[in-house]
């Protein structure tokens, strides 16, 4: 049975809290190496996140939005994507971006305040970070629509949060997607909180998944802390995005889906946030029972794909990788002030040339230290 054609309240789950496959659940077909690679990505994400938070605390990075607790949703969904599929992230999907090919170093650079972080290697098929909530959703609909119009293969996976569903751009983006039947998967990371606003104050609808019905396509809830369940629904949603609709004027049978991945943010909203002000530690503890990493580890150990030694080796490799990445990011040359001017337009207008010349004069006469002192 399709995992998508069910009531939005009937959540798709594969692993139970202990990491055992639930009765009757169908484990998606994923090769052993890929399974272990997924695990590595989950661990990498967790470790990267911890290190990033600590960099921020040490003043080596600006405000940073942590993802711990949300690794399964991100890695599971990106693993279900093909290379030609496009990822449209919000700002917390470091693991989803990385799993789809975006270098970790770029992610650090971005949060270290340099636009260089948004210049991915070619063919990454990942859009840059979107900070204004839900604004990326119409972009995703437009990208998917363009793929369809150009007859390209592939689909778009667009991430946003539970809070994001309240914005007008969520509504307009999904409605366009439904009306033009574009190959898109709208992936809602319902991590229970929009900063301090809990999910049930965000909207009175019982699930977020059911909001898809307003746009004429299916919405499905999934255990967002179960990488296999996430993989499974995303894979099917992508398949439907590419082939599941009625053939229309343009000839392709595309069909969007919305996925509500139910999960939890273990940490603060960002490093500027103090969650103890608005939520109980006991709630966090309860959700930690669902931590994707031990659950998935148990599953892989039971499958004979992991043992203590492999786990240890992966942990070590990840530490090295992240340490090297941080070093590389920190050694990345500081952006030149001229960069501010160079990419406003393809051709720099006269007025910008004059302003750039003026800034260079200021730098000459006062020195960078004076200009940048607090």
């Amino acid at each position: 049975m399709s995992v998508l054609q069910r009531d939005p309240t009937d959540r798709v789950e594969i692993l139970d809290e202990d990491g055992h496959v639930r009765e009757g659940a169908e484990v998606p077909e994923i090769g052993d190496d890929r399974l272990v690679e997924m695990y590595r990505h989950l661990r990498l994400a967790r470790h990267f996140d911890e290190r990033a938070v600590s960099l921020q605390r040490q003043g080596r990075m600006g405000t940073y939005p942590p993802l711990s607790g949300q690794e399964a949703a991100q890695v599971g969904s990106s693993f279900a994507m093909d290379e030609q599929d496009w990822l449209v992230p919000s700002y917390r999907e470091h693991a989803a971006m990385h799993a789809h090919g975006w270098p970790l170093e770029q992610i650090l650079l971005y949060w270290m305040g340099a636009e260089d972080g948004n210049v991915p290697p070619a063919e990454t098929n990942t859009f840059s970070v979107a900070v204004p909530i839900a604004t990326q959703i119409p972009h995703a609909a437009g990208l998917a629509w363009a793929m369809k119009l150009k007859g390209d293969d592939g689909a778009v996976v667009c991430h946003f949060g539970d809070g994001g569903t309240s914005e007008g751009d969520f509504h307009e983006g999904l409605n366009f997607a439904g009306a033009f039947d574009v190959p898109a998967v709208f992936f809602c990371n319902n991590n229970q909180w929009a900063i301090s606003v809990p999910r049930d104050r965000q909207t009175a609808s019982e699930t977020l998944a059911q909001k898809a019905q307003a746009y004429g396509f299916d919405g499905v809830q999934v255990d967002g802390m179960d990488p296999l369940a996430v993989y499974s629904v995303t894979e099917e949603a992508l398949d439907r995005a590419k082939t599941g609709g009625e053939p229309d004027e343009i000839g392709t049978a595309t069909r969007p889906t919305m996925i509500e991945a139910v999960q939890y943010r273990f940490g603060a909203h960002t490093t500027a946030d103090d969650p103890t002000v608005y939520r109980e530690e006991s709630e966090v503890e309860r959700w930690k029972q669902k931590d994707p990493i031990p659950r998935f580890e148990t599953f892989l150990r039971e499958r004979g794909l992991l043992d203590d030694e492999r786990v240890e080796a992966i942990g070590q490799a990840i530490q090295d990788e992240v340490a090297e990445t941080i070093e590389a990011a920190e050694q990345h040359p500081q952006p030149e002030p001229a960069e501010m001017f160079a990419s406003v337009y393809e051709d720099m207008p006269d007025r910008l040339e004059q302003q750039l010349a003026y800034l260079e004069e200021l730098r000459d006469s006062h020195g960078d230290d004076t200009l940048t002192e607090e």
Partner: protein
Amino acid sequence: MSQTTQTQSLTLVQAVRDGLYGEMERDEDVLVMGEDVGENGGVFRATQGLIEEFGGDRVIDTPLAESGIVGTAIGMAAYGLRPVAEIQFLGFMYPAFDQMVSHAARLRTRSRGAYTAPMVVRAPYGGGIRAPEHHSESTEAFFAHQPGLKVVIPSTPHDTKGLLASAIRDPDPVVFLEPKLIYRAFREDVPEDTYTVPLGEAAVRREGSDVSVFTWGAMTRPTIEAAEELTEEGIDAEVIDLRTLSPLDEETIVESFKKTGRAVVVHEAPKSGGLAGEITTTIQEEVLLYQEAPVKRVTGFDVPFPLYALEDYYLPEAARIKDGIRETVEF
């Protein structure tokens, strides 16, 4: 600008249509989208017949949602299409304001050129047609203050086609505002082939030596009329149609002012925070020493555009413009 001998006599709105047609024919990535642009051909008929020519995949009636229109256009543009989005009236652009200033304008900078938004957002603007509330806005200043956007306003059929072609071919997002008051006010010979009129260049509509009058769009006609009439009083006004409001053609502004030492700026938008302020300030920054009189602003008032019974009192017209020019010359 390319040359051609074949011309046809078109109104300004026909030139919009002709410009769209030419660019769609030239480049199959160009598409038109918006409310009622398909079957209906646009509420002003600016897209009339395009759907028959190019089909529903390239002339797309969208749902009624401006942020959705501009937001999806950004996604399309980033993917390599060249969307030309129509917003039905400038007064209905604001739901899309966030997409315009936070994304269309910033995609290139944010990604150091990895992603761009080569797109045009067209909208009819301005008053004088006895339209309902919100249908007469002239708020080009909102967009001109946003780095990353270009703002273009034509005032003749010939320019319309050529500027629209430039806007569509431009690698960056362009807000293209069309003076609907003069959509059908007069005709002009327009080449049948495609051609471009460059962005960022003002046009001297009337040479003169006593005073420089800067304006654009629908205000160009009463300004020229005022200038012509003032010759009787021995005043020789230069009329400059700026055509591109961002980036401004400072060189032409400054050169004209150096010659005349006096200036008037005419626009429909409310005075406070309108672009007359920017132009005036640019003049005094660059060429204060030539200045012989205060730069005079002849503009709309600092009131919301009124319902139509009072709109003629709101809008600058030739008499007011003449007063402004006279005052400046006689200062």
